[in-house]
């Protein structure tokens, strides 16, 4: 039989003395590893973009559409901020509302990305059409995967909020989700800049 013992809050006194919440620290450390992962994929993209450019394929990229998409993702980060603010003031229902909006906007972003991918494929730019194509789709594809995971995480957070797990004194879970979501957003801004705006 495995006995699971819940960790008492005063286990983490040393952390609080440093101003650290252990769950947030854990998520930050996780995000740092994610930054390095995206760094690797981004390095591949940039290496090949510089050494093996595909100007014809680069010209196929739809800056306007994806720009709008980027804006949608930015707004979704804003809705997370609004949701966190709501629960910090004890408003559970507004938190649920904003989390739901975040999920919708995230899904909208994915739909837009899907549209871009399909259009590019129709024009002959694919994972296999060139090294540029390989790195473009791999990099943006993995980002999309992270957005999808974020939407699922948002859903879990929303459910917890709906059944009353958060209030104006307990909302770390929402903060943790927020950290991840903002990270995914910031990664996208970097990607959008380096892929679409250069």
């Amino acid at each position, binding site marked *: 039989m495995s006995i699971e*013992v819940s*960790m008492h809050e005063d286990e983490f006194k040393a952390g609080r003395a440093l101003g650290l919440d*252990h769950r947030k620290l*854990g998520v930050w450390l996780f995000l740092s590893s*994610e*930054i*390095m992962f995206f760094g690797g*994929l981004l390095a591949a993209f940039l290496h*090949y973009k510089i050494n093996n450019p595909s100007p014809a394929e680069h010209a196929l990229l739809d800056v306007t559409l994806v720009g709008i998409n980027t804006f949608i993702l930015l707004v979704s980060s804003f809705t997370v901020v609004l949701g966190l603010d709501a629960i910090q003031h004890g408003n559970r229902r507004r938190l649920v509302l904003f989390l739901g909006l975040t999920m919708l906007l995230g899904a909208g972003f994915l739909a837009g990305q899907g549209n871009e991918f399909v259009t590019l494929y129709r024009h002959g730019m694919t994972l296999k059409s060139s090294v540029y194509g390989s790195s473009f789709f791999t990099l943006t594809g*993995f980002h999309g995967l992270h957005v999808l995971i974020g939407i699922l995480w948002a859903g879990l957070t929303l459910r917890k909020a709906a059944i009353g797990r958060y209030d104006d004194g307990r909302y770390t879970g929402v903060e943790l989700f927020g950290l991840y979501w903002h990270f995914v957003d910031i990664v996208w801004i970097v990607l959008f800049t380096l892929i679409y705006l250069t």
Partner: protein
Amino acid sequence: MTVEAQIAQEKPNWRRYFTWNTDHKVIGVQYMVTTFFFFLIGGALAMLIRSELAQPGTDILNGVQYNRFLTNHGSVMIFLWIIPIWAGMGNYFIPLMIGARDMAFPKLNALSFWLIPPAGLIMLASFFVGAAESGWTAYVPLSVAAPFGQTLWAVSVILLGTSSIMGSINFVTTVLTMRAEGMGFWDLPLFVWSMLATALMVLVATPMLTAGLVLIAMDRLVGTLFFNVPAGGDPIFWQNVFWFYSHPAVYIMILPGMGIISEIFPVFSRKPIFGYKAIAFSSLAISILGLTVWAHHMFASGMNPALRVPYMITSMIIAVPTGVKIFSWLGTIWDGKLSFTTPMLFALGFISMFLIGGITGIFLASIPVDLHVHDSYFVVAHLHFVLFGGAVSAVYAGLYYWYPKVTGRMYNEKLGKTHFWLNFLGTNLTYLPMFVAGLLGMPRRVVDYAPEFASYNMLATIGAFLLGISTLPFLYNAIVSWVRGPKAGSNPWRALTLEWQTSSPPPEHNFEDTPVMTRWPYDYGESPLAEPGVAPAAGD
């Protein structure tokens, strides 16, 4: 009945080691036993390799089998043995050493462990579908065209890297947020410092390997062109991505071991560790510098010639913090009262053999010399001196040192000493001749070689068999002593770190009362048979 009472009543049995259990001590043992099992597999592969290489000619293995065995020997030893064994020891002892009840994220901890058996099985299963055969370095384009086992290999390594990253998230969070009251950073045992420095590298470097493996996997499975040379794919890019991880990886493989050595010398010299802060800083320095040297594996690759020089510089600079450690250890044992228990013997052997590995590392850092010995048996000798003579000695030192704490029983000292001498002799006999073979012109990863290298290979094979035999007294000792050895008390070594201030093995929550640090962990040399926690003493 309350949970606490249930815990007090339950008698732990061996079955829990085969289940999902979030107790860091159970997880620690799971790690240690599982990784040791893979060590034996890696060792068996080595025995086959050395049997083939005993004489010139391809007698036992053909070229295909040989390449698969050498690839999996390296991969198993690195990813399934030496990197995770430190995670296992860290798991067991970090919470104890800092006075915590468990790790910060017990469920994540269990998950980190449980990724390992399936990953290991996947890597071994690859033998049935055409194992990976491009070396653990998997250079492209060779690895992209390799049989299906190479994909399984990539999946396995990704899983193991994930486990490693999860473990490091846990270690850093635990150390930063769960230290006992009164334990500041300059009161941390040096093993904990070494694990922190290691975790830093794991978090920064491992994901880069994951990204690279994803690229290879996509080339193999989906037909992307990352490493397709006619389409513009770049083999050198893989080398950069791979070594960005794999160089820090070697420090990941050694730093925790160095931390253990720093624990052992004070206890068996009855003196404080010499230069505590210098050693702590040197771990961080190695960790950070270690992230800047990777291209010294690529001096012959055709990389930008001008860029080679900065890497030579950083690679040589790393010798300085390493030297600080070695000299500090010497300073620790100097003028002490030395007891030559088995852990102490392994620690002394560590210095002796790691020194050779470290010195030859400087040779390799020098570009003109490296252009001769790169990818030769000189490198094989160097890496085994640091990883086997070094890291594995440190593992054994730690296993013997902490054996009474984990099992509650004392191992047999005579068997331990026998193991040590066989290991020391075997290591030197196996790897010293390889330096010569490499300098004389024997390349790496060859199933056959010119007759001029025959005598060196024969010596190496004899040494390797000695090493194989040397594991027998250890296995016998470890197993039989656990069942029948004399009961060990809570502190058979009269050590001061917190893990020794609780029973052997520790109770479910590690400590009966919440521990408060009152004594610096290296405060030896104050008064005879000092009791920890009795007199507050000035730390350094």
